[in-house]
């Protein structure tokens, strides 16, 4: 019991949930993350569990401070997400959520690359059902593309692991060199999962197509597993700073013109992941603490924002900015929670984003990355603009769309309230979170300079928004799709693949005809003795016996002669 992997409690516990019904199931599924969390808390520090397979010694459980903080937040997220999903009667989704969360926890507790790979793949496999479960043609295709991208990432990881193991002689999951072939492939595999620029499109494509609860669940785990993996393997790799900066900067342009509000949030996710990736790239203790803390806070406020949008989708059946507006009248609590999430992601003082993002920016400034710091400042203003203002504004305020609906179900409101409390709690009592972080360093987020400059940045961003809207310069919400990298594989790539396949199929058909002729001439002869009208098919295989004896005799003669 003492070395039981908490991940297994969730993964194996998910199966009985299928058989339970009603309140009993609700209590059971809520209890699982609690039990698992208790198990995590009682694990002694530095514990290892091992398992031998295919001649490799796997370390299936390895607890260090970085994995601990990720495991903690994954548990909190799992609990909130299960609570949020209680309204749905779709048992598949709850099961997928539990297994997915369990795999994410298993991945951050993995001590070697093979275990990590297995949990990564299992997470991909369980999570894709949250997309398919929406049961629309669009979600069917998006889920397929999502899975294919995850499998590609898995194949890169697998190949990378094999190469790395060959060159280093070890499969231990620890600091790696991205300059070696194995390291480079592993880097790329994590990069896909972490939505690096040009590799990011699976996220923007698939997440908004998931179910009401599915999108929230997806937002919590996969990308943060990747951040954890990068922080463990590639901390201090300078190229990550530049990759991260690109991630913070380019998605906000898309976010401004995107109509689907859940897609706006996925673009904003890439922006936030960019901050974490920059933190990993800087790689100092402060930066890595910042990455871990920001991941922690980000999971909560991003989940809160997605939850509020999920509630809107559930109640109105719509999620496009062009169809919504004025919903604060029908869904006041949801609107309130959304604003708290928006304030947190925008890093208002007293909200969670303020106390975590500043660590990363502080680290960038401290290490003298001037340009990086400026880009991050731009991205901070931008994130307020599209997540902080755009999301609540177009959904709950703006012009009244005339939609009147019910407030979100009680279970959803509870989940959002808890997430909101945590967002504010972290903002007000940051040292509680800091105590969980990998490194013990004194960091004080609340200084006069920091508070005032941050407020200046945010309120003048708000001023810009107000001015643009009142001047009529703000781009209207339009029903449209915006081309992104997926265009390459969804249009020309698809065309090429289809044509290549058609010619291969046609060629094979031709070959088939030729082979059939050949085999027919041989087959017909045998068939005469052996066919359905032959003796064999009716009673006893006399036909085949004759053939057999003749055959053996022939073979024997050949051998005899040769010998």
């Amino acid at each position: 019991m003492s070395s039981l992997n908490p991940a297994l409690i969730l993964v194996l516990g998910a199966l009985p949930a299928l058989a339970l019904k009603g309140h009993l199931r609700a209590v059971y599924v809520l209890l699982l993350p609690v039990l698992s969390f208790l198990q995590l808390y009682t694990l002694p520090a530095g514990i290892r569990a091992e398992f031998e397979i295919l001649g490799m010694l796997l370390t299936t459980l390895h607890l260090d401070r970085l994995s601990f903080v990720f495991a903690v937040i994954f548990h909190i997220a799992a609990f909130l997400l299960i609570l949020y999903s209680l309204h749905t009667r779709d048992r598949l989704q709850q099961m997928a959520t539990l297994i997915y969360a369990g795999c994410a926890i298993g991945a951050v507790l993995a001590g070697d690359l093979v275990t990590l790979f297995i949990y990564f793949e299992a997470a991909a496999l369980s999570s894709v059902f949250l997309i398919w479960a929406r049961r629309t043609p669009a979600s069917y295709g998006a889920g397929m593309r999502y899975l294919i991208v995850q499998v590609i990432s898995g194949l890169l990881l697998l190949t990378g692991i094999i190469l790395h193991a060959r060159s280093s002689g070890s499969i231990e999951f620890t600091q790696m060199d991205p300059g070696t072939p194995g390291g480079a492939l592993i880097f790329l595999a994590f990069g896909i999962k972490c939505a690096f620029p040009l590799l990011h499109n699976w996220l923007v494509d698939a997440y908004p197509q998931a179910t009401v609860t599915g999108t929230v669940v997806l937002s919590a785990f996969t990308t943060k597993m990747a951040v954890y993996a990068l922080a463990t393997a590639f901390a201090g790799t300078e190229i990550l700073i530049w990759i991260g900066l690109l991630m913070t900067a380019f998605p906000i342009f898309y976010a401004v013109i995107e109509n689907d509000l859940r897609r706006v949030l996925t673009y904003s996710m890439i922006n936030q992941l960019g901050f974490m990736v920059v933190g990993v790239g800087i790689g100092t203790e402060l930066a890595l603490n910042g990455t871990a803390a920001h991941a922690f806070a980000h999971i909560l406020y991003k989940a809160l924002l997605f939850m509020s949008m999920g509630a809107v989708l559930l109640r109105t059946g719509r999620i496009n900015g062009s169809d919504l507006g004025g919903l604060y009248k029908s869904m006041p609590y949801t609107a309130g929670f959304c604003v708290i999430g928006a304030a947190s992601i925008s890093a208002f003082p007293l909200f969670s984003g303020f106390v975590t993002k500043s660590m990363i920016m502080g680290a960038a400034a401290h290490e003298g990355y001037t340009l990086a710091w400026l880009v991050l400042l731009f991205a901070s203003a931008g994130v307020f603009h599209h997540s902080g203002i755009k999301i609540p504004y177009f959904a709950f305020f703006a012009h009244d769309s005339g939609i009147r609906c019910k407030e979100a179900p009680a279970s959803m409101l509870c989940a959002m309230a808890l997430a909101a409390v945590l967002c504010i709690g972290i903002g007000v009592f940051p040292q509680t979170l800091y105590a969980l972080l990998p490194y013990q360093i004194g960091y004080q987020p609340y200084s006069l300079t920091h508070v005032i400059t941050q407020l200046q940045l945010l309120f003048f961003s708000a001023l810009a928004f107000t001015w643009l809207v009142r001047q009529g310069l703000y781009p209207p919400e339009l029903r449209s799709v915006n081309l992104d990298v997926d265009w390459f594989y969804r249009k020309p790539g698809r065309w090429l693949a289809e044509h290549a396949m058609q010619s291969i199929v046609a060629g094979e058909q031709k070959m088939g005809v030729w082979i059939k002729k050949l085999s027919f001439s041989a087959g017909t002869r045998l068939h005469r003795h052996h066919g359905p009208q032959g003796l064999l098919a009716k009673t006893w295989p006399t036909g085949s016996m004759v053939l057999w004896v003749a055959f053996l005799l022939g073979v024997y003669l050949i051998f005899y002669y040769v010998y």
Partner: protein
Amino acid sequence: MNRKKHRYWLDSPDNVRKLVYGLYALCAALMLLDFFYHKHTNFPFENWFGFFAWFGFIACVALVLLAKQMRKLVKRDEDYYGDV
């Protein structure tokens, strides 16, 4: 509650205007605060008067106007991929 009669506070344009003026005032006050405290900074340009305020404003306007131009390049019909 009779929905037709109920008017929310934000439904009145006057109230919206009050909010906007409130924002203007708050911004002005925040800008002026720069006179009254000593900034602890990492980079020299942070000490410029109202640096963060200007930066925030210009960044957002540039962001929106650029994104608007980007639409010309990337915007397509909603059913462009044929799966809606």
